């Protein structure tokens, strides 16, 4: 198969890569750009651990071809923090104990971040729906839902919320 030179816009940086037309965005991120934040857990579009954003929408990078991502603004977990400064959502995940083994965390954060960009004040049902495509085997989701809710609306009604 012919290789192609493509340009991807990842976390507001332009990256040139040579890819096969059948290469997934996930493989290109992980193998060619050493961005290992996105994880492969199922490789078939079920688990959401490979979730990144394209133009603000969560996508499964294991089912997205790298060539399809040309022209889109791609955002990965590496783009959430501003230097050393974590995003509110990342901090909220830490403060609420939403991270256990952490393997699902990057994908979970990208889905949650996309939700919060679209809906600034989602209720529990909306959060659970937005995260329904991200499997977490460790947490039972309760603390993840709580972390997203508090990132949306910080308050002192929760002992784990520092904001």
């Amino acid at each position, binding site marked *: 198969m012919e290789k192609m030179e493509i340009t991807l816009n990842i976390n507001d940086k332009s990256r040139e890569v040579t890819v096969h037309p059948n290469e997934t965005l996930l493989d290109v991120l992980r193998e060619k750009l050493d961005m290992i934040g996105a*994880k492969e857990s199922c490789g078939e579009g079920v688990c959401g651990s490979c979730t990144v954003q394209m133009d603000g929408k969560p996508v499964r990078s294991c089912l997205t071809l790298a060539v399809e991502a040309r022209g889109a603004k791609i955002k990965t977990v590496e783009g959430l923090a501003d230097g050393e400064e974590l995003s509110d959502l990342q901090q909220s995940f*830490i403060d609420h104990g939403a991270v256990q*083994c952490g393997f699902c965390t990057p994908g979970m954060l990208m889905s949650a971040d996309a939700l919060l960009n679209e809906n600034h004040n989602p209720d529990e049902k909306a959060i659970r729906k937005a995260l329904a495509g991200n499997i977490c085997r460790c947490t039972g989701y309760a603390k993840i839902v709580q972390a997203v809710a508090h990132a949306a609306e910080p308050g002192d009604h929760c002992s784990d919320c520092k904001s």
Partner: protein
Amino acid sequence: MSDYTLIGKRMPRVDSRAKVTGKARYTADLKLPGMLVGKIKRSPYPHARIVNIDTSRAEALPGVKAIVTGEDTEGVKWGVFAYTRDQQFIQTEKVRYIGDEVAGVAAVDEETAIRALDLIKVEYEELPAVFDPLEAMASDTELIHEDFPNNVNIHVHIDTGEVDENFAKAHYVREDTFVAPEESYFHAEPYAVAARFDHDDCLEIWCPNGGPHMKSKPLSNAFKIPLHKVKVRKITIGGAFGGRSEICPADYICALLAKRTGSPVKIVFTREENTICTRQGHAMIATHKTGVDKDGRVIARETTCYMDGGAYSSTGPIATSVPFLSMEQAYRMGSVRYNGYRVYTNKPIRGMIRVHGRAFACGVDTQLDMIAEHLGIDPVEMRLRNSRQPGDYTSTKSLVTSCAMDETILKAADKSGFKEKWGKLPPFHGIGIGTNSVQTGFPMGIRGGSQSFIKFNEDGEATVMSGVVDNGQGNENMLVQIAAEELGLLPEDIHLVNADTEITSSDPGSYSQVSTFIGGQAVKVAAENCRKKLFEVASKILKAAPEELAAKNRLIFVKNDPEKSIPIKKVVRTSLLNFNSVNAEGGYWPKVDMKREWVKNPYGQLCEAFSFGTTIVEVKVDPETGQVEVLETTAAQDVGYALNPLVLEGQFEGSIAMGGQGGMLTEYHEWEGGRCLNPTMLGYKVPLCCDMPPVNSIIVESVDPKGPYGAKEAGMSIAMSAAQGYSAAVSNAIGVHLDSFPLTPDKILAAIREKAARE
């Protein structure tokens, strides 16, 4: 208890930052210079003799760097116990399940490695295969392992005496059989291993593990090299749940390929391989016969259990015992006889999983509910009449010291409104209770203890070394929390070096729920010893006796006169200037009965502490579809002492998801001729965010006399009691005691229909 700085506090985990930024590296994320891709050729047959393996075409493929078969090994067989060594890492004579290892390939890229697998020609002679434990026991065709007559891998026999006499005396006796198929871990991280040999011919290896020292020993045996030449490195791990305790043949194959090629090699499992070729939970048929007195107290029980062990022994003796032990710990039961048979079949290998025996545990509780119904006792009262009490000995002679089983039952019942709801809920609406107990540790021989080293650096910060591994449950944070508390430092001053066999001392690993109790305790003792050294130096400077000193917030101060203080950093530097480094060691070895053995002598002190848990579940069943809607769950556990409630709640919530919501409603494997039909997440349904009910977590503290700060196992007795609570609630909702798990809509609808037909 309340004057701790960090212990008992809701402390966010120190490992979270690397995980939320995507920086944490798991095995599959590792890249070493010149690294090759490894793949494993697996058996397509459930049982077959290997006639010939021809690797010539694969070897000739450009880009292939090495191919290994059983011929290239030292022929060492693996088994957790001397009497269970039945598994070669690469098969030479026979394959025993679809997925068994027959060859390994290392190539420059994945595509080449996969093509090479196809070019390896293996000639097989198919043998008759068995897939059902009862058929395997009765089968007169070729044994799966020659030395195991009737394909019985393990037989655990326990008899406390007077069982028949007590049945004869019983007011009411009933016998029921419960069944459940296999379940799987579905760790988020598929198994992966990376290996290389360094300039000193030492093997360096990275892989998910439940204890690095449990990997280094079998690898040193397999390569016939000294233990110090195997360096199992620390790496972030994406879940274990009991499934990563043992050596995996892929570890050996990857290392062998690295040795052959002189390059680093990495093998990453597909999701299917993770399901089929690591471990699964045992399928099980459990028959419980229980006799009670007129008040519902169990005076005799006899259980016979057949477990489908799959192709090899794995942790067989332990796995055959633990379902029984958990229930004998949870409930008093007069006299008892247990016969557990783990039987070889031509299916994937079964190991330890978070819920030890759904059919066993849910069977005991379902039957208690049946008996209670017969006697007109409510389920909460039934449990209180049979629950384990502090100071008791279990049937197999373990003393139970701390035990707040009753408190977990009462608090969960109170919070869930059980008494008000029981018998008063509308049709197809039910509530149920499950109780369980999990051991904090097993007798592990020379690997039963943990040791920690602490050294102070000249900047006043400390490096803590411990063999404890973190699979995701928060063990690293636990160690940091304990060290910081004892040394009077802040968590960020503690630098943890853990789970690396080159540096850290032997440790029992994270399975058997013992990391806090033993590994945490070892760090606590080391930190206390280190603090003593600091206090000796500080006492001269502060002109106060060491006993009068305390350490907090990087300061050492006089307890009665806190103004008199000195920074720890200054104490360390003073000590160094006086030619004394500040470091210390500490260890902890639980006093268990070393003569206790799973098969030969299953009596004596099993471990020093037991946890106790109760889960109450309220459900609604749709009689048209058989779908279960879980309205609320309440989980109460006696954890000894809550070191970090934030982490504990996470364990409870995760336990409800895996043990109850998934384990009792949707999770099971389907088979056809030894082939698993649902090895991936498409076919195997784990709970999603939108499925989960609310979880009320109740932490009960009994302050264990031996545990660090009184802590013991946390979380697993919730996973197990959740399974029991879910099954009880569904049974209550439909008015039928179900005996086949998980409780899928087809079974529920069939039970509703049969009941309607009867009435």
